[in-house]
């Protein structure tokens, strides 16, 4: 019964994505409303609270979803969307880390307003500090933490998204937790 329910759910998601691909604005809006929070939240925590980068990544994920990607229903739509979001974030981070980015030196538009370090500290100092440290971790440690503590996924669900074993998820979370603890030891009595 569970499998039938999953197949039905995937079928319905496939129809919804197909409707988006055929240009239905209602379908796009519905898909966006149902998923924007999870996509944006992953990106926001991936980029250490940078709302502009998170918004940009969210935009790109949905544009790809509506115009380029084929969802074949092999996994749940949310699992597939998590993968799409993670790949988008990693791609964007890779681009932004390049040294000689002339467009950053000579932006073609006005500089964007970023959530500043100070703003972060004012709006929930601990959360902002944690977010910042998590953003400094390598993606392979950062992503399981974001999926676990922002999206509330189980280890098995994280393994499905990342296409790895539960043992790998467990090991990466273990290392990520220890790094967090080492870097934020001074907050031990604050939480």
């Amino acid at each position: 019964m569970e499998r039938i329910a999953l197949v039905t759910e995937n079928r319905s998601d496939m129809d919804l994505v197909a409707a988006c691909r055929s240009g239905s604005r209602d379908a796009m809006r519905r898909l966006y409303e149902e998923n924007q929070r999870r996509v944006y939240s992953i990106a926001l925590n991936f980029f250490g609270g940078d709302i502009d980068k998170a918004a940009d990544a969210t935009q790109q994920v949905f544009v790809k979803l509506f115009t380029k990607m084929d969802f074949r229903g092999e996994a749940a739509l949310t699992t597939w969307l998590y993968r799409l979001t993670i790949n988008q974030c990693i791609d964007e981070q890779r681009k932004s880390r390049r040294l000689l980015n002339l467009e950053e030196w000579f932006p073609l538009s006005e500089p964007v307003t970023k959530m500043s370090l100070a703003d972060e500290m004012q709006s929930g100092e601990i959360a902002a500090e944690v977010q910042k440290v998590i953003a400094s971790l390598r993606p392979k440690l950062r992503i399981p933490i974001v999926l676990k503590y922002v999206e509330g996924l189980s280890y098995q669900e994280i393994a499905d998204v990342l296409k790895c074993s539960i043992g790998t998820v467990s090991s990466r979370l273990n290392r990520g937790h220890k790094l967090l603890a080492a870097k934020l030891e001074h907050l031990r009595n604050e939480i």
Partner: protein
Amino acid sequence: MKNRHYKEQLSAFVDQELSKDDRQLIAEHLLHCESCRSEYQAVKLGVGLAANLSAAEAPENVWRSIENEIRDGTTPRLEAFAAPRWFDITRIAAFATAILVVGLVTFAVYRGLFTAETRTVGQIPRSNSVSPDVGVVPVNGAEQPAIETPVNANGPTPENSETAPVSTTASWDVETIAGAPKVAGAMSADRLPVGEYLETDSRSRARIEVASIGNVEVGPNSRVKLVGTNDKQHRLALERGSLHAKIFAPPRLFIVDTPSGAAVDLGCEYTLEVDQAGNSKLNVRSGFVALEDAGRESIVPAGASCLTMKGKGLGTPFSTEASPEFVRALRSFDFANGGSRAVKDIVEQADLYDIVTLWHLLSRVPRNDRSAVYDSLTRFVSPPEGVTREGVLNLNKPMLEKYREAVETVWFN
């Protein structure tokens, strides 16, 4: 089973991802295993910290941007990341203009720095190259590479930079973020003139606009001086405390002096801290920063940190994810004359995250330790075509440069 440890399962244990039986087994083990108990405390703290993360709704304008982009395909992205469109003629024109401007600026900077009789602000007597091995002065007995040229020799410090003539009228905007930051000799703290200090107490923070190229947020208990500013160079001196810089400018235009070295921006975002003793810690969040001190240079990429110690000089960059053991061995090498023993520990502890450190060490360790460092690096990054063991061990500059590019590629992927 009594001797088995459960360190790899501790996150799953704290997150309640294990079966009841497994949880019981680990709980009993923790009662008598001090080693696992210590790790458990760290993991538990990490889980508690991560639990502070939260979800959020996307801003309203995201949907509008998506609609626009789908409708006509021409609406620009939200511009946190600019999407390169290589065959767009306007972009090509913009790039061509940018390259021309960079060339002219670079030429002007070079001429200004190397030919002017008096320098307007500080001194950066070196090229625009970001090659870390250029100018590395060997330590711990390492011989000097043939390709070396002095970097920043007798270079700028907060003290000697003051001797350079600077504009006495220029100043930068200051915004109070919290508390009451003070600008020495001024009634208000909304402008920081050249030669003056901005000071914050434990409750104060301030944001300084760095000309038109970015901003610097000054943390609590900090003292920062505007050393100089003009179109060739913008220079601060951080005497103590912390600052967080976000700079969008050509490399080497923005510099922060500390009592134990200078942080030279190469287009990046970073945090710099200076303690009461004048030691500093640099943590780079994006791009690269060059740390320079008395002829030595470390290029610190995003995801890495670097320490400087007053009187002992510049450390070697290391990953923010390096193990404590690795960092301990590196500190011993950099600051405590750890010598070959420290190099041996570094090599033994090294993993993929430590490739930037290993690459820097190639030109810092003595010849007899270099092969061990090279062998360790090759475990994680294969030498590119044309790079030979002998060439690297002899500190052949083109080979080191080529190897650096390969290391960088792995680092950012």
